[in-house]
């Protein structure tokens, strides 16, 4: 039990730390939403004078005089109530609505891409590691090079070639805007079509890490005694590869997978920027640029919960796939 109690304790502390950081950071940041919105209005040819400023202050609520700990208390109470506040950058929409609208896109695109690159990377890694020293090993430096390329650089070049020059796949947006979002085939096909290129770039740039890690673990695992035993037992190679070698070698990768799953939410900023993809990353950028504290806090909360949730999930999963964990605690 203590394994789970300790884990739970860790998650609570991590959550509390994240929430507190979440509370503090925006308050330490420069700029306030009134000024930013005014500046934005002015840029767009709006009239800005003292009256405008006054009205915006009234609307958005200026700085509060409450002591910081009262604010902190209110913040925690509101969070507990599920009230994330109002996103001033899209005033008066509640933060939860903004996030609710953006989150599915990110989760679908980056989540699927992450899972895909994990499966492909670990799968290829297992194959490469199964017969190390063969030509397959040359996959390793190749994928490493891909991983070392700045992601947006790769993405932009791919967009230029695949999307702009060859016109194979759309390189902008989340779906054909002519269609209405909904659970119909046409829309889903369109979403898949639009998501292919972004997903491809994510997979390309992240597959190398999985592949290398898995390959090295395979090599180590293959020299374990139980692999030799399995061979002596006359098991088929497929069974040894799947049930004995890869099964054990994949354990560290799975832990890594948890962490990367958690970062699905936050890792999408650049992707969404390059591909004009709707999602949480662009919302975060929007929040930061508009000093939209509430939105920022809301997104952080979601990210932290995602990371913690994914970790928790894998901790539990780990207990199942690696029976030793439960004993080790």
């Amino acid at each position, binding site marked *: 039990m203590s394994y789970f109690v300790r884990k739970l304790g860790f998650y609570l502390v991590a959550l509390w730390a994240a929430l507190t950081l979440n509370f503090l950071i925006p308050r330490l940041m420069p700029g306030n939403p009134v000024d930013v919105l005014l500046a934005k209005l002015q840029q767009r040819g709006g009239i800005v004078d003292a009256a405008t400023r006054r009205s915006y202050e009234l609307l958005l609520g200026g700085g509060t005089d409450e002591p910081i700990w009262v604010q902190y208390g209110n913040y925690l109470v509101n969070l507990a109530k599920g009230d994330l506040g109002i996103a001033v950058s899209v005033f008066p929409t509640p933060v939860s609505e903004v996030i609710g609208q953006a989150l599915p896109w990110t989760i679908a695109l980056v989540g699927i891409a992450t899972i895909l690159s994990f499966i492909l990377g670990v799968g290829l890694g297992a194959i490469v590691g199964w017969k190390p020293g063969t030509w397959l090993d040359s996959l390793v430096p190749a994928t490493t090079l891909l991983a070392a390329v700045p992601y947006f650089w790769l993405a932009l070049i791919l967009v230029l070639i695949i999307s702009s020059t060859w016109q194979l796949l759309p390189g902008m947006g989340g779906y054909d805007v002519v269609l209405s979002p909904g659970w119909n085939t046409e829309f889903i096909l369109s979403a898949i079509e639009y998501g292919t290129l972004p997903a491809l770039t994510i997979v390309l740039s992240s597959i190398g890490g999985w592949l290398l890690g898995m390959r090295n673990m395979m090599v180590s695992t293959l020299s*374990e*005694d*139980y692999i*030799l*035993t*399995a*061979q*002596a*037992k*006359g*098991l*088929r190679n497929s*069974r040894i590869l799947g*049930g*004995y070698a890869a*099964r*054990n070698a994949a*354990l560290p990768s799975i832990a890594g997978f948890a962490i990367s799953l958690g970062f699905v939410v936050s890792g999408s900023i650049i992707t969404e920027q390059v591909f004009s993809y709707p999602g949480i990353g662009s919302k975060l950028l929007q929040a930061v640029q508009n000093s939209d504290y509430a939105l920022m806090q809301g997104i952080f909360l979601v990210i932290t919960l995602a990371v913690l949730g994914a970790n928790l999930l894998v901790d539990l999963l780990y207990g199942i*796939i*690696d*029976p*030793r964990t439960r*004993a080790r605690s």
Partner: protein
Amino acid sequence: MTALTERAVRPVLTVEDLSVVYDVANPVTAVKNVSLTLAPGEILGLAGESGCGKTTLAYAINRLHKPPARISSGSVTFSDADGSDIDLLALSDEKLRAFRWSKLSMVFQGAMNALNPVISIAAQLDDVLRTHRPGMSKAERRARGQDVLQRVGVDPKRLNSFPHELSGGMRQRVMIAMALILEPQVMIMDEPTTALDVVVQRDILREIIRLRDELNFAVIFITHDLPLLLEISDRIAIMLRGEIVELNSGEQIYRNPQHPYTQKLLGSFPSLTGDRGDFIRTGDHALTGDNR
């Protein structure tokens, strides 16, 4: 026992002139022209100091050696109980796979690590049966697993345990159970008890002997503990730098060692109950010559 040693019976395993080379920068011939035979139901002890090639020989017999190891010469013939002879070194991969474990099984040096840590004992036993006895039903396989565990003195209730939940001695027994599960004619045991407590070690040895008497498989028992071998083996082979320098019945090896190395090995074990020798605690015994 002596009857067995006189090759009156058709041997179950014949190794002739076997050499194994490690193709490394300075190639090492880890096993040199080894010949031996193993009669059905016989326990053949293989002793020698660390690195003399015992494990390499065991692997080569089952063709488990991996590069850089290479069999440079010799033959290994398995004479099946049904009368056919199998040239192990000539078997195709698939035939070899089918041969392994069903005719010849192994218990490895450090068998504690020979169990896959992430799947249960039941699944690992089941794997063997599923591969080699495809006809068996699930229930039959489970019953068989329980049966072999029972035989080696492990509570069949532990079938669903994971290796880490068992003590070292129990894991060792599980490995032996696994080696038994297909009732092979030959079992190679490579230092199966080295890491264990003497008391546990004794239990396991007793178990092996009992099972051998019951099932009549032949055993190649590898260890560097000569006194132990003397207790349990019918014949003992002494290995030195890849060669078998002496092969004789346990009685002969103990009473009348021929090769100086055998003599030295025997001298390395002070007797438990015998006299306190003159060399003890004098600090200048000839054996301390290896002190550079």
